[in-house]
């Protein structure tokens, strides 16, 4: 875990409003695990003040490059979009606890909603590394508002996975959301390993679909200040024993949690 100014080697649009940034970061590339995130300064001035959490989308260990796939959502990501190749970006990371990797042969379902693909892309790379060419047991479900709004879809396909798509407007694949799609494709029989990342409503409906699935893991989002567990701002509710609410901290205890430990209602 370190804080450094990293040289930008790439910062390009992948689909409208979504960009891929590559950073020269040998140590970071070695250290990062799928599901972990970087805490990024988007400006050197005091506005915006706080860092922005962005998942590691890929760590190319050979070249020493770390990638972030990000959606332009507001002030911070807009400034990030303007950074040019050769500029430097101040990054803290890798932070948080990532996904636990499957063992070769485990049945796997991966569900990504919108920009939720970002950490899953890294996960899929790792799964490919573990599984080799035989990834039949791995089903990937990606969704977005429209077919052209699913980021890095071709790249995921190019990894060799069988990818099912869902779109709200029916412009490609299943018309509906990824959870409905997975339900339909899997016929309600979820494999040993389920990994997801996406908007809260998607995670909620996945929770309903999966019930008490022992290994399903999801990545959570919450507004963050420190990113290292010091400020106690990034809470999410977890199942509690008593009456009092119990909270976990997304930046430190997560961002990846076992779905059944969460209290998403």
């Amino acid at each position: 875990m370190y804080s450094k100014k990293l040289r930008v080697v790439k910062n390009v649009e992948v689909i409208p409003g979504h960009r891929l940034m590559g950073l020269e970061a040998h140590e970071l590339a070695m250290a990062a695990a799928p599901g972990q995130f970087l805490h990024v300064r988007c400006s050197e001035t005091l506005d915006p003040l706080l860092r922005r959490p962005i998942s590691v989308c890929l760590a190319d260990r050979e070249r020493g490059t770390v990638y972030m796939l990000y959606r332009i959502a507001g002030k911070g990501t807009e400034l990030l979009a303007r950074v040019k190749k050769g500029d430097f970006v101040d990054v803290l990371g890798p932070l948080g606890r990532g996904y636990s990797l499957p063992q070769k042969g485990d049945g796997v379902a991966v569900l990504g909603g919108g920009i939720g693909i970002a950490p899953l892309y890294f996960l899929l790379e790792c799964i490919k590394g573990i599984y080799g060419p035989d990834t039949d047991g791995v089903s990937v479900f990606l969704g977005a508002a429209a077919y052209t709004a699913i980021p890095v879809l071709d790249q995921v396909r190019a990894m060799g996975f069988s990818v099912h798509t869902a779109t709200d407007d029916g412009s490609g694949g299943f018309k509906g959301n990824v959870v409905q799609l997975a339900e339909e494709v899997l016929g309600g029989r979820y494999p040993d390993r389920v990994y997801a990342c996406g908007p809260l409503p998607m995670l909620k409906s996945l929770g309903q679909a999966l019930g008490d699935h022992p290994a399903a893991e999801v990545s959570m989002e919450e507004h963050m200040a420190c990113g290292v567990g010091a400020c106690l701002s990034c809470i999410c509710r977890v199942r509690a024993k008593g009456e009092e609410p119990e909270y976990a901290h997304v930046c430190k205890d997560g961002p990846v949690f076992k779905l059944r430990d969460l209290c998403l209602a």
Partner: protein
Amino acid sequence: MKLEVNIGGIIMKNPVATASGTFGFGLEYAGFVDLSRLGAVVVKGTTRLPRPGNPAPRICETPAGVLNAIGLENPGVEAVVEKYLPCLKDYDVPVIINIAGDTVEDYASLASRLDGCQGVAGLEVNISCPNVKKGGMLFGSDPDSAAEVIREVRAATRLPVIAKLSPNVTSIAAVAEGVARAGADAVSLINTLLGMSIDIKSRRPALGNVMGGLSGPAVRPVAVRAVWQVYRAVGIPIMGMGGIASASDALQFIMAGASAVAVGTANFVNPRATVEVLEGIESYLLENNIRDISQLVGAAHQGI
């Protein structure tokens, strides 16, 4: 070059501390900063019993600032004594416990529990937290109730007592006078400014707890002013904080009258902020041929 300062009996090897609630129990930042280099570590607000804190969202960014409504989430004083203090023993740094309560008795009981506790250098009495329903800022809003809390704490412990003041008052100098008379060895200021933000999409308050506390560079001018006023009102040492992100920010507080400073929100932006502030102060002293930091304390008051 002498950097050592004495904050009401707490000897700090340099004037740079961490602001309560922004540095966890110190260990979260130990990977970035050698804690032994700091003047003091002030830990998260601690209550008698564990507290879950407020519902989400607890934080919201504002221009050059941050609103927080953590609501004093903490594991309770017993866990602090048993779990966190022992870890901090490995570092050569005074540890100051920030204490908070719903009632005067809570404060007194915390003070007596921590009295004589190994590894505790002093108490910072948080009578200024805007994020709890009972106690907190209510005590700090009035010189008399502030003094009452400090008097009871003073009676319950031999540890140095620092009263942490709220800027959300008509006269912070009057509150400072109250706590000084009640036996505070030092004051620290400022805690956060009461603020709020509204999410115009949902048309709801942006924070789960509706209002929150504003901190960060945005509040620095208010904090420097508070230090300036309190310096003129009382003789006890001041720990200044509020928006310090660089050495020149810290020097403003020192020249306004602070003997020590604390870095808060800036840690979130730059985990090495404390050490960088310290190094910058050292350079300033060197460049300006100042042998002892105490020569700068209150320097801006000269002739005014």
